[in-house]
């Protein structure tokens, strides 16, 4: 039984820049961190398709060995010095939040259900968004996508909303739609 009631969520509002968010959390992987270096861009859209220039995107991910830098990941896999796996960036005037990181390794699914495909978990905050919106970013073409247990929970016609595609300049771009006909799949985590 719970004895204490949850503190309710509120919007991040429009005025977080400089205090909550600065550029220092957009570079996740200093030189020397193992793994394939990637650029990730998350573009926020509202229900009408307009870009959201005043949103915050956070990412959390495992390292290239599939290990989370956290005390509850007790597996005997390497940790990389200087790589926490956390990033936070504000959207720019085009609604895009950018991160430089490494492609994560696979991590186990819940309850011994095999392995998940490489992914980042995302939190999205913005003016007008009253609760943290949780979603995921997977990588187009990854051979593990077909047996990812979380993607299997998503109706087939909506899975594409979670899969970033490589743009001509090599950036992995994930459009996120907060409402509207292309609404992104959000998760109750």
């Amino acid at each position, binding site marked *: 039984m*719970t004895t204490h009631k*949850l*503190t309710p969520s509120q919007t991040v509002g429009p005025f977080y*820049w400089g205090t909550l968010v600065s550029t220092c959390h957009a570079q996740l992987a200093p030189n020397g961190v193992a793994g394939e270096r990637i650029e990730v861009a998350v573009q926020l859209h509202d*229900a009408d398709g307009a870009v959201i220039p005043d949103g915050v995107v956070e990412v959390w991910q495992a390292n290239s060995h599939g290990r989370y830098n956290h005390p*509850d990941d007790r597996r005997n896999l390497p940790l990389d010095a200087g790589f926490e796996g956390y990033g936070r960036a504000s959207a720019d005037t085009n609604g895009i939040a950018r991160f430089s990181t490494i492609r994560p390794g696979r*991590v186990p699914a819940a*309850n011994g259900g095999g392995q998940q495909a490489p992914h980042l978990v995302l939190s999205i905050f913005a003016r007008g968004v009253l609760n943290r919106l949780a979603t995921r970013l997977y990588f187009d073409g990854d051979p593990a996508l077909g047996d990812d247990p979380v993607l299997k929970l998503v109706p087939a016609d909506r899975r594409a909303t979670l899969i970033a595609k490589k743009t001509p300049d090599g950036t992995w771009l994930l459009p996120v739609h907060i409402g509207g006909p292309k609404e992104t799949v*959000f998760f109750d985590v």
Partner: protein
Amino acid sequence: MGEGANRANLPPMKEETYRRAAAGQHPANLSPEYKSTVARSPRQAPIVVPHSLSEITGPTMADERLGASEADLTKQRMGEPLGERITVQGRVLDEDGRPVPGAMVEIWQCNAAGRYHHVGDQHDAPLDPNFFGGGRVRTDGEGRYRFVTIKPGAYPWKNHHNAWRPAHIHFSLFGPSFATRLITQMYFPGDPLLALDPIYNSVPAGARERLQSSFEIGLTEPEWALGYRFDIVLRGRNATPME
């Protein structure tokens, strides 16, 4: 790597998970009185994911060093900011009342005149060169945190005619996992603007009151600063695996 090799690395089966929020604890994503929610709210139900390592781990920012000035927002510039000096303190707890130690707590707020140190804030009120408005602390072993700051002012916004935000301080917490991430706002007791504010009132009655800090004479320091308490409760762990 084959499946067999990976199985040896699986975490213990008694993996702890976090409780899901019961109805009525958080605001509805679509809260039309707060107009920005209309075009910025998902309409499809979120998909429930069983908790894997991706959800039960999260950033701890353990490597980040925090300076003393990050807990005292009145000491971040050359001089003292204008306004009513206050302390805001409390504990970060889980739903079982257990303290959450070592948790990063971040705040940001406008100055005493109701103006943010932010290029997008065009409210016709003075900036205070001695007030930046951002702070961070880590909770101690008992989950306690404490900030020194000034009481933020109310300010107008464009939501509806003659709309004013009640005085508030933004709070950001990670807790122990991705699942426990929370951004919220702390308000001040007895503020007449609370009843008129669509953001505060987006939270169901019975829960929204938990966003009000309490004034405590016991936390008030003579000749120096009024004391406010704001305890924050994050999701608790399931006693037994749920999924």
